């Protein structure tokens, strides 16, 4: 079933995508499936384990289900040091 998801990008990801959010029609059922679908398209090229995901402004597990209407936020690695 096709879902309509708002995807938000930050920092490096936003610059790679060229915008801070977009509406995506997708078959992905989890956050990680959606990320995998988009990372190649946008050339994120970041170690996946260092990235994080939030759904509707709450940090979430990569395996979390996503629903039509969700806002999914992809966080590139933070600066740390």
């Amino acid at each position, binding site marked *: 079933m096709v879902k309509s998801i708002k995807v938000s990008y*930050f*920092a*490096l990801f936003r*610059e790679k995508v060229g915008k801070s959010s977009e509406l995506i029609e997708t078959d992905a059922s989890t956050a990680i499936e959606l990320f995998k679908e988009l990372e190649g398209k946008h050339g994120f090229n*970041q*170690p996946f*384990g*260092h990235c*994080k995901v*939030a759904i509707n*402004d*709450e*940090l979430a597990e990569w395996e979390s289900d996503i629903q039509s209407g969700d806002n999914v*936020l992809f*966080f*590139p*690695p*933070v*600066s*740390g*040091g």
Partner: protein
Amino acid sequence: MLVTDSQIDIFHHSEALRNNHAGAYSCFEGWIRDHNDGHEVEKLEYEVFEPIAIKEGKKIINEAMELYEILGANCIHRKGLLQIGDCAVWVGVTAAHRNDAFIACRFIIDEVKIRLPIWKKEFYRNGDSGWVNCENCGRKN
């Protein structure tokens, strides 16, 4: 936990932690330094996703209060454009004894740097710029 786009009023925030039971105050300030990884840095931009940065920052402070014998703790982080010498982040902790104050202060800044959705873009003297990547962010939280 606060995120602000103006200078951090460290005096005000440390005064707010004053407590007659406290014998120790430990603080940390992160300053914008003029070099990183061999590059000469001119200025720096912090991008913060505030809803989660604030929520997660408060969680870290609560964890510190539970883990260590401390009386109070706070953290303020800047967002936006910062110049060399500016204070980007401040952490202050009070405790009866200094061991707890030091350890909790260190805990808070370490966790803040790893867990908060805050990204740093460096602008170099040679005109280049780049997002700074995390060295320890592969750590399991």
